[in-house]
């Protein structure tokens, strides 16, 4: 992790777009899975695997690695895609997502895929595991950092608040939690389903340091992680303001794309078999907005 110059930012933007295209290709091949969350978190995962985390794709068990724990396991296509582009396994393997015999289970399984630290999917259970890892590292006076990715919807789970309390009690300054604040969950908008705000005040009351960031701006992402590393005696929450479905304008902000793959369409949208191809075209041209060199 270091200062991002223009060249590095361009590199990360291109990688993030490649990750988004892989996500759409995987979901098309799988015929099921979640679309909005993985697209919204593509920039964060790209930043993590290509700039922020200390890791070695050829040696996933490297003792000096940082630990990445994905709590909202259903957005795993974005983690798988970022891992493949980073060199953990061949990019072609992404097309095995959710198929029998795959290492890329519908929700990630620790024992299947090297580089996955914990199995996850049932919401709320990732944070406590990350807290356990962080406490264990501190017991052994090890410098590794722990990053935990969570959804905003899973803040509904009671267990999350048990884990938040424990992390505050243990002053886990080796733990950074990224909350994907995309404002959607399966049944609708988070503030309609179960209001979460005021989020900052809640986490601060639980003895966490809170940083808001624009999760689609690499400079902002990088600064937030740098600030987090500078906080002592407290764990840090990055409230990552994301656009669900980011990169494909027609599905951005639409909660109905939370749990549906391209081509299947949400319940009240007529399925469009050509949708996947159209989404990929949009990503190739970034919605027709830009940029020759991305094509």
């Amino acid at each position, binding site marked *: 992790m270091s200062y991002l110059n223009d060249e590095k930012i361009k590199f990360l933007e291109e990688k993030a777009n490649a990750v988004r295209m892989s996500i759409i290709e995987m979901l098309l091949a799988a015929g099921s899975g979640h679309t909005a969350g993985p697209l919204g978190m593509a920039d964060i995962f790209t930043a993590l695997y290509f700039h922020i985390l200390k890791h070695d794709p050829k040696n996933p068990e490297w003792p000096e690695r940082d630990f990445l724990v994905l709590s909202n396991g259903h957005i795993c296509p974005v983690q798988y895609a970022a891992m493949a582009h980073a060199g953990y396994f061949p990019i072609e393997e992404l097309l095995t997502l959710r198929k029998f015999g795959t290492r890329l289970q519908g929700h990630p399984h620790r024992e299947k895929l090297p580089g996955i630290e914990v199995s996850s999917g049932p919401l709320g259970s990732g944070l406590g595991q990350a807290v*356990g890892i962080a406490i264990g590292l501190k017991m052994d006076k090890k410098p590794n950092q722990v990053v935990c990715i969570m959804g905003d919807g899973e803040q509904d789970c009671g267990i999350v608040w*048990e*884990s938040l309390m424990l992390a505050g009690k243990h002053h886990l300054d080796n733990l950074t939690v990224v909350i994907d604040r995309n404002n959607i969950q399966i049944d609708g908008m988070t503030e309609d389903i179960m209001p979460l705000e005021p989020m900052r005040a809640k986490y601060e009351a639980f003895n966490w340091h809170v940083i808001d960031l624009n999760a689609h701006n690499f400079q902002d992402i990088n600064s937030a992680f740098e600030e987090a590393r500078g906080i002592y005696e407290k764990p840090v929450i990055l409230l990552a303001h994301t656009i669900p479905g980011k990169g494909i304008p027609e599905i951005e902000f639409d909660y109905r794309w939370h749990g549906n793959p391209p081509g299947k369409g949400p319940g009240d949208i007529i399925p469009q078999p050509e949708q996947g191809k159209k989404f990929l075209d949009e990503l190739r041209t970034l919605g027709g907005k830009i940029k020759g060199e991305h094509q």
Partner: protein
Amino acid sequence: MPTNPQMKLAENLLDLNTVKQEPTRMGFGLGLVQAADENPNIVGLCADLTASTKMDDFAKKYPSRFIQMGIGEQNLAVTAAGLSAVGKIPYITSYAMFSPGRNWEQIRTTLCYNNSNVKVVGSHSGVSVGPDGATHQAIEDMAIARPIPNMTVFAPCDSVEGKKIAYAVSKFYGPAYIRYTREKTPVITTEETPFELGKAQVFWFEPEGKKPDVAIIACGPLLHNAILAASALEREGLAVRVINNGSVKPMDEATIVQAARDAGAVVTVEEHQTAGGMGSSVAEVLAKNFPVPIEFIGVQNRFGESGEPNELIEVFGMGVTHIIEAVKKVIARKNA
């Protein structure tokens, strides 16, 4: 008396006036400290019941390896999974009703699916918890722990075996559930009693040269009632074999099937719902290998209630006389 001499059981175990009485959970506390003395990776996590679950000696001796979790049993399980991911061997304690009761899904996903090296310790199992009543009497815990892949399940019969199991589970990698009890109960075994995880042991043999009329297969402190019943039945001329089946999963199928072959009739005894527990597991093994008539001693599809421990054992049909009745009934079924 035909207790198995190789088992080196307590000599006075039939004498209720002199037999030593201790709660099985006391053995847990000793076994944990013994394991922790040898292995610095062992850590202890407790959900605000450190003294009742007997984790207090460990917490005092190794304060930097003890984590007070507060009343958060779900977090208890998942935090332990995280600690296991960085090489620790966590023991997690609460009442069995709350762990593995309240946190079952976290145990399934983060301990068992993850294949974490975490030992789940549930104290206060059974109706013998007594006055606290049904909310705190775990009698479904083995039924929910047993079917989960990777999970192992143990039910020690006394404090001495409880100590040995607490120590032994630290020696293998993987999740384990051990059920302990609150009340003082007779100490059946001794330090010299041979012990191996996964083995059932014959504690009481039929008289030499006779075939057993019945095999009583028991786990937990009720094993003592099974032995008292065997002693009474022997005085009536019946030949009985009593097996300590505290390793509920993995179960020692060979010893169980051999007992069914030799006796042709089985009674299972456990302080647990008869649905889904140790007896059900015995029935699964025998149905597949050597079906014989079985009677099940345990709680019959009821919730517990407040009362004195011994009183509740009688009310819920798990006393010595109930075992004797079940033996006679199963022998009659065999001979019908």
